[in-house]
């Protein structure tokens, strides 16, 4: 037997209680791992590494549209090979099924997004039909759409000139992703921008954002800076970023994600402190005579304090490490399952904060019971006083 063995044996003396407490620690650290990685994504600065496309939106917000007249200037930037644009349509299918529907220039979109695969005749039909619409395979399968169907879609933003928000489009093609990752993303619907531009009641020749295709990904950061500098102090100042950062900025519209995550984690860990703290306090209370016997046998006050603190640390470490391990696994599965859209990478940074939290938790939940054990008077404890 070793001192460590003794600590572990004591930890599992009430198996049900310890298992339930461990489960709550595991759940807390699982949440911690996943949420902290989300937080890390949002807190991270721009990363231009490997970007082959850039997104340019209005500096204030992507909800302020930019004029299509900017396209020649954007195309003139060295390193930009093609420019496409995309306007959020706010499409609703049937009762209340939100669609990711965008008005795009078909040819430009085809050029900029080679990842979308569709028969060439369907691309031509998309470009040549005023009321054309194409849909991702996942969304078409979900709603049972077939090429040739007339698809009624209403917009929760844009009315037509006649005042109706009920639009109708001809489904001329169904696209899919080029590889497994992109197949999972085939959830969008694209409508012909020209038709949208002519028929909608609000603003003409404007779009939410431009997509710049680059010749060389190494130039991404420099081009982004150049584009934004070009429109600085103009009525349409821009913000150019990678697709990944652009996607994140959508989620950021919900609010300060970092703050929300921190508050959730605070609530989780505060509850955990109470749960584990109570378990430790109860465990020590039940063992007062045993702790007194340890002191009787010659274990010092500091040793007894160490035993109790070690139990708290073992509880937090076992639960914390399992929780972080599961979070790492889940993060990888979520990242794989979402085709890389959700990059929940529970990496070194999250582990480092997790380990620091384990240390803090161990002290926070173990210190008071440990001090109580340290102060224990042998004679009183043995007499049950």
């Amino acid at each position, binding site marked *: 037997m070793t001192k460590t063995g003794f600590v572990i044996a004591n930890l599992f003396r009430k198996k049900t209680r310890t298992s339930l407490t461990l489960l709550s620690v595991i759940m807390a650290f699982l949440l911690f791992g996943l949420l902290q990685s989300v937080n890390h994504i949002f807190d991270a600065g721009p990363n231009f590494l490997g970007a082959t496309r850039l997104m340019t939106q209005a500096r204030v917000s992507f909800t302020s549209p930019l004029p299509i007249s900017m396209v020649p200037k954007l195309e003139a930037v060295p390193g930009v090979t093609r420019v496409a644009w995309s306007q959020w349509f706010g499409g609703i299918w049937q009762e209340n099924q939100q669609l990711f529907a965008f008005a795009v220039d078909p040819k430009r979109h085809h050029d900029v997004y080679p990842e979308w695969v569709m028969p060439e005749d369907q691309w031509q039909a998309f470009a040549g039909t005023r009321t054309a619409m194409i849909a991702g395979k996942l969304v078409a399968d979900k709603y049972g759409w077939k090429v040739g169907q007339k698809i009624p879609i209403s917009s929760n933003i844009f009315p037509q000139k006649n005042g109706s928000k009920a639009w109708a489009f001809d489904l001329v093609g169904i696209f899919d992703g080029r590889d497994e990752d992109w197949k999972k993303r085939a959830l969008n619907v694209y409508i012909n921008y020209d038709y949208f531009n002519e028929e909608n009641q609000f603003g003409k020749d404007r779009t939410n954002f431009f997509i710049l295709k680059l010749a060389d990904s190494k130039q991404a950061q420099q081009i982004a800076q150049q584009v934004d500098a070009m429109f600085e102090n103009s009525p349409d100042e821009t913000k150019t970023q990678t697709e990944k950062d652009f996607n994140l900025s959508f989620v950021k519209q919900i609010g300060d994600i970092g703050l929300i995550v921190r508050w959730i984690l605070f609530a989780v860990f505060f509850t955990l402190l109470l749960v584990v703290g109570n378990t430790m306090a109860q465990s020590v209370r039940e063992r007062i*005579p045993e702790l007194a016997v340890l002191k009787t046998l*010659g274990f010092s006050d500091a040793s007894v304090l160490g035993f109790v603190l070690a139990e708290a640390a073992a509880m937090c470490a076992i639960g914390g490490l399992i929780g972080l391990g599961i979070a790492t696994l889940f993060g990888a599965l979520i990242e794989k399952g979402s085709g890389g859209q959700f990059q929940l990478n529970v990496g070194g940074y999250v582990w480092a904060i997790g380990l620091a939290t384990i240390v803090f938790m161990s002290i926070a939940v173990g210190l008071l019971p440990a001090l109580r054990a340290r102060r224990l008077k042998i004679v009183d404890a*043995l007499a049950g006083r």
Partner: protein
Amino acid sequence: MSESMVQIRNVTKVYERGKQKIEVLHGLTFDIPKGDFVALMGPSGSGKTTLLNLIGGLDQPSSGEISVGGNRIDRLKSGELAKWRANNVGFVFQFYNLMPVLTAEGNVELPLLLTKLSAAQRRKNVAVALNVVGLSDRAKHKPKELSGGQEQRVAIARALVSDPQILVCDEPTGDLDRKTADEILGLLQVLNREHGKTIVMVTHDPKAAEFARRTLHLEKGTLVEQAA
């Protein structure tokens, strides 16, 4: 048996309960020779256990001097006293006070975790101690799998394993039937006679006291009689 193992000089013990001060021991003076087996008897509240706690270094006197094995233990600080207990005293309690999560051998090994012995040496010492109390075959059993008498034997093995000079026993047979009690007392007698251990035992039971070499009677914190 002339050399003193325990020297008690003018020892008093006062407990404070709120504003009330209760003097439990009143200036006790006596010696316990090396190799003696002393039974401490007396009515409840006479101060037997208090005196035993002072001899075992679990508590400190309010005044007076206590020497055990030549060490003035009344002068030791808490940490020093803990070390002294680990090296010099074995304790046996009425309710055995074994660790329920450990096996018999784990319980016996516990005091040895305070020594620098190797794991192999610790295991060897544990085996010897369990053999002395006749429980080698129950080494892997946990306390709840043992009878009361067997638990007390494990407790005695735990008290013996670090080879202390003195054993202090607080009602070691108080929770046992007569037959088992006699077996335990016989074992203590063997430890005293054959292994030379000095034993101080608190008991209410006159039959238990008969196993000791002599009996000290306490009444209201004062030594009233010494019987051979």
